[in-house]
């Protein structure tokens, strides 16, 4: 116990190197930040609006990812359909596609002239692009693979016999899932949700392309940062840090509440 906790000395160097590599850019940002402008930015209603919009959409996107992604992960890990390889490939698409192209693809699918979008518009009068719903959609598209891959890993790791035990006790597949499988994979789902939320929060390319950049409805923090970079680079740094601090606080809070690790 005691001694096994320690990391091999040979690995300490790369570990610290990796840490330094990730931390140094942050230090750079912190050094350059005009701290006196933080208050001013925080006071700006547009910034608060964007921050709020970002948090809301990222959270809704994460929920959507959970609702669609967990079942999808289950499908991937539990069936032996012949097409499973294709499904797996489809899931990695949003990972590899540059986000801007992802946004174009979303427009092609859900835009007013899109494959599905044209019917959504004609039949239900629903248009998704350039709305907050569109932001959520773009973020969901980009973030879902992270959730699916994390949850699939968790599903492969659990002892299936617990599910069998539940079945012999009279639980149907749904009950087994809800009361046994889900609690068992909870840590994996949480890790996936964290990745997913962080990715959604930082999403830029697909959002601006698919949902546009309207203050109040689709201008999230990364878009605000983008505009600030155009005209006021210092403000961009302040805004990024603001976003960073908020997200770290949220994630730390989550971890503390739900995992109890550390």
């Amino acid at each position, binding site marked *: 116990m005691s001694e096994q906790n320690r990391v091999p000395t040979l690995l300490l160097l790369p570990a610290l190197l990796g840490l330094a590599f990730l931390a140094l850019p942050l230090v750079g940002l912190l050094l350059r930040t005009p701290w006196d402008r933080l208050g001013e930015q925080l006071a700006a209603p547009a910034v608060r609006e964007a921050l709020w919009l970002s948090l809301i959409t990222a959270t809704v996107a994460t929920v959507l990812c959970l609702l669609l992604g967990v079942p999808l992960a289950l499908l991937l890990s539990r069936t032996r359909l012949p097409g499973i390889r294709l499904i797996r490939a489809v899931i990695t698409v949003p990972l590899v596609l540059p986000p801007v192209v992802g946004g174009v693809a979303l427009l092609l699918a859900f835009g007013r002239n899109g494959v599905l979008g044209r019917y959504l518009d004609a039949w239900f009068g629903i248009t998704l692009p350039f709305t907050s719903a569109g932001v959520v959609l773009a973020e969901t598209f980009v973030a879902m693979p992270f959730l699916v891959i994390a949850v699939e890993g968790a599903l492969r790791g659990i002892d299936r016999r617990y599910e069998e035990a539940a079945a012999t006790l009279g639980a149907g597949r749904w009950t087994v899932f809800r009361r046994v499988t889900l*609690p*068992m994979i909870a840590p994996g789902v949480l890790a996936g949700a964290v990745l997913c939320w962080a990715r959604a929060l930082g999403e830029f390319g697909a959002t601006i392309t698919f949902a546009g950049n309207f203050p109040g409805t689709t201008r999230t923090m990364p878009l605000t940062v983008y505009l600030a970079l155009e005209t006021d680079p210092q403000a961009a740094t302040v805004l990024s840090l603001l976003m960073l601090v908020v997200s770290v606080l949220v994630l730390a809070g989550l971890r503390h509440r739900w995992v109890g690790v550390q």
Partner: protein
Amino acid sequence: MTLDANLVAVQGDFRLSLPLTVDSGRTCAILGPNGAGKSTALRTVAGLHPLSGGHITIAGRPVDRLSARDRRVGLVFQDYLLFDHLTVLENVAFGLRARRASDVRDKALHWLDRVGLADYADRRPRQLSGGQAQRVALARALVTEPDVLLLDEPLAALDVAARAHVRAELRGWLADYTGATLLVTHDPLDAMVLADEMVVLEGGVVVQRGTPAEVATHPRTPYVATLVGLNLYRGSLAAGVVTLESGSLTVTSGEEGEVLVAFPPSAVGLYPARPEGSPRNCWPVTVSEIEPHTGTVRVRLTGSPDVQADITTAAVAELSLSPGTRLWATVKATEIRTYPV
């Protein structure tokens, strides 16, 4: 709620074939070495492993095509598989909630009380000792009032002291239980204490069945003989003499033909020189292993045939036994049981 089944199942290269009938309120023990197919048999009955032939009928109702949840079968796994994210009470309540029973909490608490764990209702399974976990697993299975109860080595994970105690408890609960019970075990004592009938599986097929007492006294394979601690041989009997593969034994039976012969190690006498006297069987042997037990010592001897003897510690000293010592073994013909193959 009789269980009537012919379990034919395949698991990789392995093939199980086990016809089985267990009446309501009766317990059938399945014994066998590792990999004999005991767990596979239980999983097949429970609907967790597909039947590749044969049938399963519970209380007259064919259940072959039903899913595990609809078979009304209670399965207690060797390592219990309690749900660690639920409290002890919720573990017991699980089956009731799944079946949308009423008064779930009361019923679960009642069963927890029956197994003597009412005080542990709010604990997590990992905070229980092995014996307590075993009782919770049993309560979890029994609370749903299954038609058939399947126990996979229910006592294997317990220490010896707890095992004796839980075995006695289990006996009480099985006595109250009105369904059919299938009990998988490695320990013949479990079978003796708990079962009405015993089936011995080896390599997926039945090698012996009968009441525990019958099986214990008339083993038909070396595995069963080791299990019950008897010397067992196979040979052909003619004119009161059984000719074995190596050596022969004089017996009291008048039958003829292929037989099994068995006698307990305690029936074997050991002498430093050829004794004169009544024992009809007397042959030279060499000590290969000495194993002290409580009170007695078991000595394994090579000869024609090989044999095991139980003697007192005093005798060991007197004969100054050690591996390699040459002795004469005697067995009275009246101590030897013979029975047809």
